[in-house]
């Protein structure tokens, strides 16, 4: 996994609540057996005017000029500013894969859906929860000022605005450690293989039907 330490990134505002994973990456792209290449189909139904299918040359498709991701001022954005309950719906990890493949490294919202939130951390994509009134202000500032950037410092757990305002955010120690160091979580867990085996042996004795 790609490590995440600090980020100074252009911000793109997506002003909709309850953005679901079907919107982030529509189902037809889930047929891929790869982890990469989903970026061109991020928000496919909102971003293009035609119907997208896997294997199409996306560079030749008609784009929707009304969709915020297509505004020239937001090209190259690395921070997605979003509304409440972002990432609701399915467990498809293709959603964070698509955001990450597009170039986003952080998503800021007042709240996230649980499974999506969890999936982000596995892919070097940092989901940041900030209070709703702060997110409101960031939306207003971002829309008012072209080239609006935010600085994210994971070690310090802060988001800093261009005016120097600093907002703290929460993250568990384990997730922070894995992200800062780009660690392979499976490798970490396997360091406790003996404990897993001991648990299994105990359980096999207590609930043998689970191992029949």
């Amino acid at each position, binding site marked *: 996994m790609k490590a995440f330490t600090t980020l100074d990134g252009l911000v793109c505002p997506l*002003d*909709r*609540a*309850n953005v*679901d994973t*079907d*919107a982030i990456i*529509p*189902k*037809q792209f*889930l*047929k*891929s*057996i*790869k*982890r990469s290449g989903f970026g061109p189909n991020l928000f496919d*139904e909102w971003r293009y005017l035609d*119907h997208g299918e*896997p*294997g199409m040359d996306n560079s030749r498709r008609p784009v929707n000029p009304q969709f915020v991701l297509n505004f020239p001022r937001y090209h190259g954005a690395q921070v997605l500013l979003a*509304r*409440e*309950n972002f990432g*609701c*719906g*399915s*467990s*498809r*990890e293709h959603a*964070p894969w698509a955001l990450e493949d597009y170039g986003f490294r952080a998503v800021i919202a007042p*709240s*996230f*859906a*649980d*499974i999506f939130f*969890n*999936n982000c951390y*596995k*892919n070097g994509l940092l989901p940041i929860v900030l209070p709703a009134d702060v997110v409101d202000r960031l939306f207003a500032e971002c829309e008012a000022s072209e080239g609006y950037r935010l600085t994210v410092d994971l070690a310090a757990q802060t988001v800093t605005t261009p005016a120097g305002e600093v907002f703290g955010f929460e993250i*568990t*120690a*384990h*997730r922070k450690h894995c992200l800062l160091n780009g660690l392979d*979580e*499976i490798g970490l*867990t*396997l360091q*406790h*293989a003996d*404990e*897993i085996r001991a*648990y*299994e042996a105990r*359980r096999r004795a207590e*609930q*043998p*039907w*689970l*191992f*029949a």
Partner: protein
Amino acid sequence: MSAQTLYDKLWASHVVREEDDGTVLLYIDRHLVHEVTSPQAFEGLKMAQRPLWRVSSIVATADHNTPTDHWEDGIKDPVSRQQVETLDANIKAFGALAYFPFRDRGQGIVHVMGPEQGATLPGMTVVCGDSHTSTHGAFGALAHGIGTSEVEHVMATQCLVAKKSRNMLVRVEGDLGTGVTAKDVALAIIGRIGTAGGTGYAIEFGGSAIRSLSIEGRMTLCNMAIEAGARSGLVGVDEKTIAYVKDRPFAPKGELWDKAVAYWQTLHSDEGARFDTVVEMRAEDIRPQVTWGTSPEMVTDIGGRVPDPARESDPVRKASIERALTYMGLVPDTPISEIPVDIVFIGSCTNSRIEDLRAAAEVARGRRKAESVERVLVVPGSGLVKAQAEAEGLDKVFIEAGFEWREPGCSMCLAMNADRLQPGQRCASTSNRNFEGRQGQGGRTHLVSPAMAAAAAVTGRFVDVRAL
């Protein structure tokens, strides 16, 4: 020991180790696998040369991509076919307790197949790379959806890195009226607490109305816990749970059965257990539900009307309603009972079990699909459900009513196969999500129960099934 909730008990019995920040290694008993969210996980294992930690924990099937007609032709879409064949190859290479491939008699939607095979048992932790894994909580199992990285993690370590959720109790007391089903209860709860109301919680469903539900009904309810934002839904074990599990292929037998039952009978919240949040509802207040928007919380009952965004003061919510009505092609204040439908879909991991098909058939019996309805798809949840329905003659009821009787699979719930809505088509659907584009780009989904879907099919619009 102080009084515990069911969730507390299930969590505590699966903790392998705990870090200082509360992060836990949680042991996983059952891992259900399907073709869409597993290929990258198997690929990761291969690249790191890691084996499956416990082959016998894995039960797999192909469901999302599989066609629901002309099985003799195989899977025509080459991309879908490759994904299903990749699962075939991965199971062959890595092994599993059981695999129900495309066209196998036991094949079906993973959340229908698991319980009917007895692969889901009370007290287990159950995971699957699919958000509707919450379904299995109906058995007093701790079950939730995971992403593909976690699928790989469970395959390699038999554990999940997890943090405990908070406890929510949704208590529904009283008697559900005739024609009011578990689906209506689920939608009414989501209408009450919202699609993020359960975020960060495990929801236990309790109260006399929940106890009165069949196991199929409890599965429908727990299935939709994720639409309320909760990764897990739970119902405590009772005699119905145990009767359902008995004699299923992977259920324990003989002495082990007795031992298991003795343990399972402890799987309920203790008297006086503390919940962080309690939501109370009266069964008598719940009427047949119909969604009108593009989120399951955008719901009302059959006597209701499409809302007017002008009456909403919150600007974000107002914008959401306006967007939803534009997408859905609906005018504010339209009575729900005046909305015509083009397509009806009866199926999905929410509502494709035998009880659901019986409820739909009861409405369809002796009636015909309305002229204005283009097509009605009935897609059983598994090969075994299909066989049972045919043994009861339900297939004939549907065919005589002008409905299409299909092969099992996820089908038009998410439209990964050929079953999908065309832009602008309006569908009465027994599935779980009415998101934009969910059933096909530009398709308009109204979530309802199987009986309400069948009633829409024979009348051409939403009607109160109780008055039919």
